């Protein structure tokens, strides 16, 4: 699978937040993490809360710099890329949209064009065309004039996705894309990811604690536990009871999805107690 240079490569990466000792500091948030994502893959990073998923994403987008190790994009260290250069390669759909100022959907999506012409004061016609295509792909074209604070959670999520698509990145990173979405939008988001990957050849990095979503859409999974790589492999290899239980610290049952055949993870809920 790994022919040529991988698109993303973490080489023995460690990171410690500068947190004071008394607040649980000095601990590493990531320790010796190594993995590679090939171009064209849909790759998932999963794990329990505070396993280091968000830190990993921030290291990739150079919001943070590793304490040790190297993060490479297409063979080049991310620290050597100028800001706009990195943003032309990697686009992030964040978990939540902060919204003190209600920009319109179209204005938001056009912001994705910034790395393609940072010196321009206004976007040009080509930028507008790309933005429209991105809005159509994410299903928010008819919402263009609406301010963000008038959108539902699902619509806002799709607007953020359209902004990321407008960046025309090689790698699309999604941070907990279904956290606030109901079932219908979860299904739509999964479908959209698969389309973007299949039709545009975009590599997708999905960061999620939704194991079932990750199992459905990802080619390979990286399971993080306490900042270390617990397992890398296909969903069938990673989503096994013996692998998951020590990482999540609870009893787990894995079976197969009735239609897709991919693994589905269940918590082994305690049996209800008889009331006295």
């Amino acid at each position, binding site marked *: 699978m790994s022919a040529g240079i991988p698109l993303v490569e973490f080489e023995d990466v460690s990171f410690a937040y500068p947190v004071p000792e008394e607040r649980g500091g000095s601990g590493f948030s990531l320790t010796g993490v190594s993995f590679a994502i090939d171009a064209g893959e849909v790759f998932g990073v999963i794990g329990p809360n505070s396993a280091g998923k968000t830190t990993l994403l921030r290291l990739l987008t150079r919001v943070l710099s590793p304490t040790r190790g190297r993060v490479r994009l297409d063979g080049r260290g991310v620290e050597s890329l100028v800001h706009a250069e990195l943003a032309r390669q990697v686009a992030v759909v964040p978990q939540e949209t902060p919204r003190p100022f209600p920009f319109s959907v179209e204005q938001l999506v056009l912001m994705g064009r*910034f790395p393609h012409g940072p010196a321009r004061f206004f*976007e040009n016609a080509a930028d507008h065309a790309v933005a429209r295509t991105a809005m159509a792909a994410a299903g928010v074209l008819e919402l263009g004039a609406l301010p963000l604070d008038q959108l539902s959670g699902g619509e806002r999520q799709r607007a953020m996705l359209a902004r990321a698509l407008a960046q025309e990145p090689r790698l699309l990173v999604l941070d907990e894309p279904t956290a606030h979405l109901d079932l219908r939008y979860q299904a739509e988001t999964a479908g959209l990811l698969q389309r973007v990957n299949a039709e545009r050849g975009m590599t997708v990095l999905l960061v999620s604690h939704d194991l079932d979503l990750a199992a459905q859409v990802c080619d390979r999974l990286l399971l993080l536990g306490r900042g270390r790589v617990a397992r890398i492999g296909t969903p069938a290899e990673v989503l096994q009871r013996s692998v998951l239980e020590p990482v999540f610290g609870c009893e787990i049952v894995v079976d197969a999805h009735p239609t897709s055949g991919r693994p589905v993870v269940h918590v082994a809920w305690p049996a209800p107690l008889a009331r006295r």
Partner: protein
Amino acid sequence: MSAARRLVVALAVLGAALVVVIVIALFVGSAGLSAGDVVRALTGRAGSSSVESVVTLQLRLPRVAAAVLAGGALAVAGVAFQGLTRNPLAEPAVLGVSSGAAFGVVLAQIFGLGLSALQSLGVAVFAFAGAIGAAAAVYAIAAVPGGLSIQTLLLSGVIVGIFFTSAITVLISIVDFDRLGGVVHWLLGNMAPIPPSALALFAVLALGGFWLVLRSARELNLLALGEEAAVQLGVNARRLKRRVFLAAALLTGSVVAFTGPIGFVGLVVPHMLRGVLGQDNRLLVPTALVAGGIFLLAADTVARNIVAPAELSVGVITSFCGAPFFVYLLRTRYQATL
């Protein structure tokens, strides 16, 4: 309509309104000149020492220029601080930055600096330093991991404002009052005519600050999504914040140095523009320059005519408009975020 076209239309409308307000400001006043007198003075057909010439060219015209410059600079500073702090209620006076600059100016006056060309530069430097000191203090007090919340930012602005206002009172109390003649009037914000050389310096500083904010307008839009998102979109957030911070301090400091700490222009004007034009800083920054000029010139024209032949300080008028407006914003639009 594209953003560029909307900007052109908005600037045309505001430019026409500015011309109207300038004409009104030149023609009305307590001197009781007729329209014909003013026209004669403006066209140079009145004697240079005639009453109409002195009133129109040496009193009203510089005052109009100072008001337009100060209003524009304050409104742009408001947009800059709002973008920088991602807080729609931020403004030089609310943040205590005006008070810091005022402290610098009082200090400069104690050292004997006046409004001659070179000395006014010294006053501006003191005001700039005061503005930077106050803004840095507010930021240091309010900054918590994850950004600046509306409550802590407003509170620390109030605290820093009170501190510098008290410091000014101390200075005034311990220094011989004659050396600080007019300082109380100036502290309320006033448009007393300033010499042409000082006016020119004011224009250079204010337009310099405006240019820095305008250059940053597109990136300020991205910063509204949060610093992490801005970095991920290719913005050098650290450099951007430093540039806008310096520009906003420069704008505030120059206004305070030459006309006094005038409040609420940076709140009222940007919000009226946001209501019409939306949140795009590329539209807000240039239109705020013109609309701020209109607002402060209108306020000053009211201030010098409403109780003529006496006159009110223009800061009183802007505060009378701004304070209720602030309460309105706090109680309606931003209640959810508090």
